[in-house]
């Protein structure tokens, strides 16, 4: 292969056709709260790990819906399960349990 000194930029394209509905239903079966998140970002605002990394539960849920679960799992690796997010969630979501369920459902390791 020829090196031209420049190359393709990684695509930021979101292909919703790749959304795995069965997997999402599997997650929703053990964690129905995933459906009621309104993406307000309160969890992100108070996240302890978020001060040092890009950890964001709101973004992780969006990533799953945007057919990018690997990105979501990687993001949640930094979570310390401190539980501050569950205290501020206006929908009363058990966020720690949700984070563990997402990691368990979508983790490939």
């Amino acid at each position, binding site marked *: *292969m*020829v*090196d*031209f*000194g*420049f*190359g*393709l*930029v990684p*695509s930021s*394209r979101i292909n919703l056709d790749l959304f795995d509905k069965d997997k999402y239903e599997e997650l929703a079966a053990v964690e129905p709260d995933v459906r009621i998140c309104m993406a307000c970002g309160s969890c992100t605002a108070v996240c302890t790990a978020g001060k040092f990394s890009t950890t964001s539960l709101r973004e992780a849920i969006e990533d799953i819906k945007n057919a990018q679960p690997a990105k979501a799992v990687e993001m949640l690796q930094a979570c310390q399960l401190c539980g501050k997010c569950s205290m501020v969630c206006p929908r009363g979501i058990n966020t720690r349990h949700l984070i563990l369920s997402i990691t368990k459902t979508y983790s490939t390791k």
Partner: protein
Amino acid sequence: MIYEGKQKIWSEYQKEIPDDHYFYVRSCIRQSFFPASEATFLDITRNRLGKDIFETEHHTTCGGIAYHSDTIPQETVMTIIARQFALMAKNGYENYVCSCITSFGLYCETMETWREFPELEAKIRENLWKTCKLEFAKPKFLIHASDLIYKYRNLIAAQAVRKLVNVHTGEPLKVVEHIGCHYSKMFPSKGVGGAEYPYVLTGMIEAWGGEIVDYPERRHCCGFGFRQYFIKGNRGYSLSNTHKKFESMEPFKPDLIITNCPGCPYFLDRWQYVIAESTGKTYGPDGHGIPALTYEEVAGLVMGYDPWDLGLQTHQIGPEPLLDKMGVEYDPAKKYLGKNGKNIGEPLPCTCLKG
């Protein structure tokens, strides 16, 4: 559907294109990219259709590349453009037709700016007189050369010796049409079909027997973007634009891409080589690419011009599979022979891309 209503709406997307008597201005880069396209335009309009198209050797670049690269101020560009318009008036014309989409967009932008800011127009009028001693004038009609071929599309079809049809299957060729962004995205009312339904190339393809491919990224930029390709560090963005378009059109298996901008055929053509050589991916059948031609070259092919006289050997993507599909006769031995019969030099073979 109320047919009259649809007709009324569509009429708002139309553009008045005079039939004859034009002052023609060439592009500064097309002659080095695809050198025969402008000559073919002049030959078709003047000699085949009998139109009055005048050009002068005194005109210059419009300054568009420098303007869009932020290297010269707008007033300088406007004075350059005022000089072009003055040359038109000096030679007795009031219809202005330009070969380049960047120029066309810039002329539209300049005319609109003068309309909005008459004091700026007065200043440019003064600049023109001080620098060139020429009288300021504005064209009555500002047209892109593809508008003119669009207007003459049925006259060209009447003289066509072949259609955009696969002679082996009898099926119409699948054609991707790509319109330069500066044609109607900036000033929708200046283009045939506006920015929403640009029809200038579609009309040609339909008149010449081809079938339009409607794919998701149809209106996406080709990747020309001045500041993207000028700087090597940014060139990946240009390449990625083109890559996105090709990934989107690939499932539709197009036979041909037709364009009306100087940069689009260049980048849609050359970046296929770069994508192939750097990633191994090709978009045509059997390791070939998809030929990206200018509308003059396509018009020339349907009117029976020799493909080597149209300059198709200057394309990175070999045109032979397309010529075979269309039933165009050509002599492979003459591909790299110039007008004087001497070899013009051949490119080295590619590793991944055939042709």
